């Protein structure tokens, strides 16, 4: 079982769309996939039309009163399951802090799922916190969408150096890719060219800024179900191929 976290310090960069679309793609190719919506805002849960509620809340999970297996919901797609978001996840840091070995807790919860799933996608809330440290421990790959701006790249480098000091770093692959790309903007084009030379951990894949991805909220479904040939869909396919190859 491979655990892939979509992660960004900043919100609104297409993190959830990435988790949902890649998970849907992997499942449609025959793998057994679980998405865990860790973001209390519950966007992934909304896309799958599932009610954002976990029996007993996130607290019951972290405290070990409930197994992850008990709260899994099947989605409308074959082989694709979801652990829905819960509003109580906003307090996750507090609960984690009170538990033993807080940063290992997510990995522990996921361990029994290895028999049932080939891939787990963790859709993480945007921040660096105890919860994200727990994610770094559990994940094999950290998939980071980057808007081609100087600031966004600086944050990526910060993340890289943060992870370098992190104990779970060895097995964790940091994979960046470009999101919300507007090829009409000169700054975007220049930055993408520059990064391609300097940072091997950033893939040369560009998910365009497009209304297709925004329409996922209207359809409440993954992109491939309503716009399978769109430029964004093509980019997600490339992204999944490249990610799989790096795992």
């Amino acid at each position, binding site marked *: 079982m491979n655990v892939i976290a979509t992660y960004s310090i900043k919100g609104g960069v297409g993190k959830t769309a990435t988790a949902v679309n890649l998970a849907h793609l992997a499942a449609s*190719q*025959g*793998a*057994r996939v679980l998405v865990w919506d860790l973001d209390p805002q519950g966007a992934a849960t909304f896309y*799958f*039309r*599932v*009610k954002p509620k976990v029996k007993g809340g996130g607290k019951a999970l972290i405290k070990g009163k409930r197994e992850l297996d008990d*709260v*899994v*919901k*099947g989605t*409308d797609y*074959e*082989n694709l*399951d979801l652990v829905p978001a819960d509003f109580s996840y906003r307090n996750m840091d507090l609960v984690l802090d009170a538990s033993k070995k807080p940063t290992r807790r997510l990995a522990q919860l996921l361990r029994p799922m290895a028999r*049932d799933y*080939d*891939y787990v996608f963790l859709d993480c809330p945007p921040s660096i916190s105890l919860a994200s440290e727990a994610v770094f421990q559990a994940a094999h790959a950290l998939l980071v969408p980057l808007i081609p701006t100087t600031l966004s790249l600086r944050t990526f480098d910060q993340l890289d150096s943060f992870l370098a000091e992190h104990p779970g770093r060895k097995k964790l692959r940091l994979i960046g890719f470009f999101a919300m790309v507007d090829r009409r903007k000169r700054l975007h084009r220049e930055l993408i060219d520059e990064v391609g030379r300097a940072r091997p951990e950033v893939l040369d894949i560009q998910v365009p800024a497009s209304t297709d991805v925004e329409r996922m909220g209207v359809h*409440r479904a993954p992109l491939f179900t309503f716009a399978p040939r769109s430029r964004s869909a093509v980019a997600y396919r490339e992204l999944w191929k490249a990610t*799989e190859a790096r795992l």
Partner: protein
Amino acid sequence: MSQLHRFVVTDGGDLEQLINGLSQRANFVRDPDRRSERSVYDTFDWRLFEAGTFLELITALDGRGGRGEVALAWRSSLTGEVLGRLGVDEAPRFVWELPAGAVTDRLSDVIEMRALVPLVTLSTVRHPLRLVDDEGKTVVRVIVEDSALADGTPLAPVVEVHPVRGYEAAATAVVDLLAAQVLLGADADDVATMALRAVGLSPGSYNSKLRLRLDGEGTALDAYAEVLRTLLATMLVNERGVRDDLDSEFLHDFRVAVRRTRSVLGQARGVLPAAVLDCFRAEFAWLGTATSPTRDFDVYLLTLPEFEAGLPPARKGDLKPFGAFLDQHQRSAQRALVAELDSDRYRTFVDEWRAWLVEPASDAPDAASPAVEVASLRIWKAYRRLIRAGRRITDDSEPEALHDLRKDAKKLRYLLECFGSLFPADEIAPLVKQLKALQDVLGEFQDCEVQAGSLEGFGQQMLDEGGTPASSLIALGYLVEQLDERQGQARAAFADRFGRFDTKRLRRAARTLFGPMPVVADRDLTSSVQPLVVPPDPTRGHLPVKAALP
């Protein structure tokens, strides 16, 4: 994952009415019908069926008979869950022909080296329905399947209720709704199994494990003949696959049956007539030898990926010439093997052996003795021999001593496999478990020894045949070193493994099961055990009652 529910539409059931009835209910959505042609695959020994799954090559058809997407779909028959789906052009013969990935890995764990055999083809129309909640989310899937065999014979339509994880209550409500329909019968097989039975196949009918149920009241001759008949049947049922070299496992199972037969015949003095033994033991020995070369090459071909994995990345390609060498020699060994199977000697021998087994007769002294008594004695002897020989092994023992010990262990194992059903299964199990573990270590030791020798021999042969690059020979040398290391590890593990087999508890179990007297005065095996009186077991008639007295 919760179980799916399956109903079969009984004769006279109106399918269209059923589907319309459901789709008119509130919150049921009817999706477009899907037509497909499906071919069901399994291995010769039903590995996919035994794992509670089925594998189909599904070709989507449009309404006008046009062919669309082709996919290999692997499902659990219990839950309906898709275990994997792979886009392919045609079904592979072996799992290693499939694209690498998580699904292929899981499938490979089940079917390993066996070939996939097409079993039955059917055409299906699927009528999918969904129950949705107020968010428009699917909470139950209902699939009505209407299928016919390739020759047009219709199969009974099946209605499947697939629960969606986390929404089981909704599925229960739908099941209750359907259960109230008079035209539906519960507990139906999945369509794949129905189709297999319809063409006269019985899933699970072949298994390489000996599944014998010997008559506890029978004579020794009855039991021996029953075991030998079963082994001959195994040989014959595999013969076709051996000839066609469909996969390496046919020959493997064939040879195991030959070895088991030889082992039983080796323990049959006093039960089978001496003349019969002399004749057939020689013939089975010949057959064992005749099938050896092909199996040897098969083993190296199967081990090749493992050998490759053991090489440093830069050297991985160096074994290619070795692979080609093995392939070529396997083929010529296979041709020679088929020639032997076509020979008069083989035909005559099999016919005569079969004829003897149909009406076995023997005036040998133990032929009419109770089977359980004769089997106990033979197993007891083999067991004691193994214990005694094992205790003589020290760190300085020659490899041959371990090799001989492996043979002793095998003999005991075959006897337990063939005659085990005469004894209580739960009492034999712990003994067999430790024996197996011991055999694994001995097997590893011996395999490393033999393989290292063979690889050196192959290297020389490749040199003699010419055109072999030096890099291949270096790679072989590297492998020999690794085998040497593994052999050392197996040797180091031996004492511990044997210790776990030769425990007080298992010795006592063995003596109770097979020993001549139920009184354990274990003098010749252990010195410290106090005599213990075991009350006679009334279910075990072979123990003379007076033996229970000290």
